[in-house]
């Protein structure tokens, strides 16, 4: 049953149902303009903010799916403006494009170009969602002649506990993932802890006071701050701001090793800043514990042979860099590749980009790579071609229409001038 309403002018006005109102809202031009403006503002504010808080923290704040709302900051000061998070703005833009750019748009040959272009943008947004939820990024910092078969995940720590064999070689470590630690924040008000048990290890590990970013200080008698952690083995943790130049979280925490045999518990400080395991013994066996960023095993090995680079004059920003690497494929066959800026190595769904370069130290060269697995890696290219095709089609349609119109305009003028010429000739005769 359709609802009707009588307006003051006496015309019968159809009362729109709720789904129609929702559809109208999501397909409106106003929404498209608003979302695009908001996205522009988010990009602008995040670009400014990342110079203060670093790329990862800013990307997390503005672009992560958990960021529903954002209060931007300029030079560390909050500005009185609440913006929706970029992820959810893109979701609204996606709905807007589908409702307005595909469903609501008039159908016909004239609209085919814009429909194709809209479809390309919709696919681009889908690519973004797939990338956000399915891609994995890792870092591989390489030293010349070093062989690497792993990357570490930025922004994700882990706690690794393992046994040493009789030759004091590491055995496969138990891994406590970031998600199990991040809620044990040191400043959470009530002290939080979690006990981790391991199937064949004779002790439990209790974790507490987790820091996203902390520095290790030596307890040398200098005044301590209220929020400083406890002193263990002469050192303690102090929460610090992330360094935007390195953009690296120095995850840290306090742990207690509790042996099952009732022997004395042992307190330790673990930190990302410590690049090696700490050791302890239980029941006459040696064990290790450490807190690296989550380690990601690669399907191939990479060995850095040479790295080259140049900085922009007077800066530490590389203007050019490249690396020669030897890598082994899954069959163990050695291959040589040159990786340059924007020319990555792609193999078995893994893409290896060079992301940084460090000048040689003591004759040893260094390169930093980023490794990405993303099922939608090449989709943006397709999306852009689709949008390009749609716009070109639309442009040709418009151009041909214009030319046709101009030709039609000039034809009657021509015929008029011919009639005038004939009349003149008659008069002269």
């Amino acid at each position, binding site marked *: 049953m359709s609802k009707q309403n009588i307006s003051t002018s006496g015309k019968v006005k159809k009362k729109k149902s709720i789904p129609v109102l929702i559809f109208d809202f999501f397909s409106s031009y106003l929404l498209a303009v608003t979302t695009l403006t908001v996205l522009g503002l988010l990009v602008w504010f995040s670009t400014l903010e990342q110079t203060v808080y670093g790329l990862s923290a800013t990307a997390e704040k503005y672009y992560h799916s958990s960021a529903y709302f954002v209060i931007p900051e300029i030079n560390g000061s909050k500005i009185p403006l609440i913006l929706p998070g970029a992820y959810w703005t893109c979701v609204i833009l996606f709905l807007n494009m589908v409702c307005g750019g595909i469903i609501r748009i008039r159908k016909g040959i004239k609209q085919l170009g814009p429909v194709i272009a809209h479809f390309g943008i919709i696919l681009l947004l889908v690519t973004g969602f797939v990338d956000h939820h399915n891609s994995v990024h890792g870092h591989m910092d390489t030293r010349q002649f070093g062989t690497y078969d792993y990357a570490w995940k930025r922004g994700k720590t882990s706690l690794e*506990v393992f046994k040493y064999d009789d030759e004091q070689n590491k055995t496969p470590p138990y891994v*406590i993932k970031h998600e199990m630690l991040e809620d044990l924040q040191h400043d959470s008000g009530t002290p939080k802890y979690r006990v981790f048990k391991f199937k064949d290890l004779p002790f439990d590990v209790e974790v507490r006071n987790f820091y996203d970013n902390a520095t290790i200080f030596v307890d040398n008698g200098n005044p301590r701050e209220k929020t400083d952690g406890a002193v263990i*083995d002469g050192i303690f943790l102090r929460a610090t701001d992330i360094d935007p130049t390195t953009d690296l979280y120095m995850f840290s925490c306090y742990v207690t090793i509790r042996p099952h045999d009732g022997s004395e518990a*042992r307190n330790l400080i673990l930190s990302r*800043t*410590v690049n*090696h395991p700490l050791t302890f013994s239980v029941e006459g066996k040696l064990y290790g514990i450490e807190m690296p960023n989550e*380690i990601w095993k690669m399907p191939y090995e990479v060995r850095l042979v040479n790295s080259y680079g140049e900085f922009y004059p007077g800066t530490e920003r590389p203007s050019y860099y490249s690396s020669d690497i030897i890598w082994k494929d899954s069959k163990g066959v050695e291959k040589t590749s040159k990786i340059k800026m924007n020319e990555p190595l792609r193999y078995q769904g893994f893409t290896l980009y060079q992301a940084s370069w460090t000048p040689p130290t003591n004759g040893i060269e260094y390169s930093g790579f980023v490794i990405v697995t993303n099922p939608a890696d090449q989709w943006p290219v397709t999306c852009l071609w689709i949008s390009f095709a749609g716009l070109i089609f639309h442009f040709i349609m418009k151009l041909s229409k214009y030319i046709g119109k101009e030709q039609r305009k000039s034809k009657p003028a021509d015929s008029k001038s011919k009639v005038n010429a004939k009349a003149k000739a008659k008069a002269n005769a």
Partner: protein
Amino acid sequence: MKKHHTHARTQIFPFLRNIAFLSAILLTVGCEEIPKEVEITHQRELCKFDENEALRGAVNRFKAKQPIHWRRLAETKNRILNYRVGENTEVALGSFRGSVKSNIIRWYGQYGQTVTVPNTTEELKPGIMVKHGTMIGNSDYYLLDIKGKFETSMGGVTVKQDDWSTVGIICQYNDEELITIKMTGPTSETAKEKKNLIKFAEDLKFITFPEDKQ
């Protein structure tokens, strides 16, 4: 008009109710708390990260085999390998540019003792420091054992200990590098650990990258 408003409300309220219901479910699922006790079963496959500390930016470039009862602590600039034995004894391995002579003088100085040290290691005499054996790369190492009242200043804080002892090992690895391993603690503990320290020094190896020599 009133009737129409009421009608619209009856449609909007179920819609809002559904939204609120879905949000509540999502929030409940999203806020699921991790229990206080968790059993970890996931073990990571070993990789190059586990083989070589030098690959991951550690200051350390030594491969050491430690006595099981020693505890390895976080490295510092001057303590590339840093261990704690018992509650009070520390073992620190350092790599410096300097002379054997200056280290001997400094270590004895921490006990308020002055020694006359010859200019060459070949002239060292028992009572000061003696050549004891070879370690890393077949280089000679020298061993000293100082006992007494220990006094040193660390970061502006003076540390004083009675009945203390330092068992030190110095190895002139090459013209530029001096490797020192120093164990400091109560005399009773260092005496027990002296053998372990010597074994530790003799088992020490470099983490090498064969191609570095190219």
